[in-house]
């Protein structure tokens, strides 16, 4: 999405009066307590909006860009965020997270979600240790097997690490609808705490099997690519935010899309990615205020289909 478009749109909606009843419109922030959900395996509560780092945090060694991402992370924590997700597949993202964590003030709430993405046990162990050093954390809160790669090998390692207290939770991920059959099989047979896949107001296939299964098995759900890497939100931005979005404290399309996702009973957390502070503030606006009920979710989905 172009930088100008998203900001201009919020202004234009305000000028049309479509969202004039919304609180704190300037920053798109609703009031009230932070929305949290429990991790089923322990009951630990985490904020429903996390931070993804695919593409957006892969900025190499450029100091200016790294500092800009640190500012995004600072805003994330300032607004009540906790879970940050990354992977060795994301280029320099892990190093950039570590750069940010070393410089920001209130990182105490960090819930670190790393991934292992390689073949072979020994390489996986080495990769996870390298990731830990990049992040600069004592241990990961959550370690996930990325895209099911060599999962039958890594699941053994992760179970050992969890038993030894070297990681608090273990999980497995996919995205964009890939390998859902394999993921379902793992969810049915393995003692995992978390699962991650793509879900949004348009791509709702996971409502049929994976989300109900996660609820049944007591597995926390992280939703990735909530904006279809920008494609979905760009499409939505061509249309006015419905005035009834104010009923669930949404001041912009980002909040509309995120609240649809986190209001699903089986979803624990969503991890939108951004490289911009103002977009982060918009996203974090979905961390407060009212969530849609089932009836409102249906209305949101029908509206999204029409645009």
């Amino acid at each position, binding site marked *: 999405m172009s930088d100008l478009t998203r900001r201009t749109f919020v202004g234009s909606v305000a000028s049309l009066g479509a969202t004039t009843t919304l609180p704190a419109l300037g920053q798109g922030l609703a009031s009230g307590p932070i929305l949290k959900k429990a991790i089923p395996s322990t009951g630990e509560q985490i904020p429903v909006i996390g931070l993804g780092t695919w*593409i957006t945090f*892969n*900025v*190499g060694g450029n100091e200016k860009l790294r500092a800009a991402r640190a500012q995004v992370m600072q805003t994330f924590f300032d607004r009540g965020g906790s879970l940050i997700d990354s992977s*060795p*597949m*994301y*280029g320099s993202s892990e190093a950039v997270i570590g750069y940010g964590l070393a410089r920001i003030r209130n990182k105490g709430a960090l819930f670190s979600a790393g991934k292992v993405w390689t073949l072979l046990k020994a390489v996986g162990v080495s990769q996870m240790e390298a990731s830990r050093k990049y992040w600069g954390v004592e241990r990961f809160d959550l370690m996930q097997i990325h895209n099911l790669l060599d999962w039958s090998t890594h699941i053994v390692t992760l179970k050992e690490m969890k038993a030894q207290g070297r990681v608090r939770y273990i999980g497995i991920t996919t995205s*964009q609808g890939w390998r859902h059959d394999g993921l379902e099989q793992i969810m049915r047979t393995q003692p995992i705490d978390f699962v991650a896949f793509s879900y949004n107001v348009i791509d709702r296939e996971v409502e049929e099997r994976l989300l109900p299964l996660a609820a049944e098995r007591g597995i926390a759900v992280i939703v990735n690519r909530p904006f279809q*890497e920008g494609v979905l939100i760009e499409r939505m931005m061509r249309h006015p935010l419905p005035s009834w979005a104010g009923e669930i404290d949404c001041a912009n399309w980002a909040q509309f899309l995120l609240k649809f996702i986190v209001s699903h009973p089986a979803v624990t957390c969503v991890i939108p990615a951004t490289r911009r502070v103002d977009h982060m503030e918009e996203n974090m606006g979905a961390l407060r205020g009212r969530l849609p009920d089932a009836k409102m979710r249906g209305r949101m989905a029908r509206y999204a289909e029409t645009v």
Partner: protein
Amino acid sequence: MRSFPFTADVYFSLFETYNSAIWPAQLVAYGLGIVALVLAVRPLAAGARIVLAMLSAFWLWNGIAYHLMYFFQINFAALGFAVLFALQGVLFAAMAIGGRRDFRFQPDLIGWSGVLFCLFALVGYPLLGWIAGHGWPRAAAFGLAPAPTAIFTFGVLMMLEGRVPLYLAVIPLLWSLAGGSAAVFLLRVPEDWSLLLGGIVGFGLLVWKRRQQSTS
């Protein structure tokens, strides 16, 4: 979906960091490129060895310095590219040491195309990049960045005397297709249309040259 691990802005910021770190190697590379073109067009004794050694140096530098030390920071696939570029450098080095090839410029379609490819790599490619907003220090420098190096290599191979060893053009072609298509279609880098099309046209001309010499 835009599933590519980095943005165009990050890609060019990487060039900015890289160019700052290796300065003034760019001036040396340009000097070597001009010498290589002159030696390919007007051969001297041992000139072929010098040209091939320069190509070897360019490809090895791209593999180790650019791909492995810099591009790998943002793209895990750069590790594979580093191996392929280094292999290309070794192939040119082996041919230079073997010393059995010469250059002979022929004023025909292939010969002039070779000169055109080389001049484009030296002048045209950076000019297109500058027009597209990717001027210095965010430019892909000749000899030290893959795109102009691959285009230049096709040009030099067109001026090689006798049957063209096509194996020397396989890795440049692979880079043109893989790197060119990613840059054009995923990162929207307009100047890399020349890499994509140059690779296809360049390889086609080399195949044609080889067939001409087989039948003559």
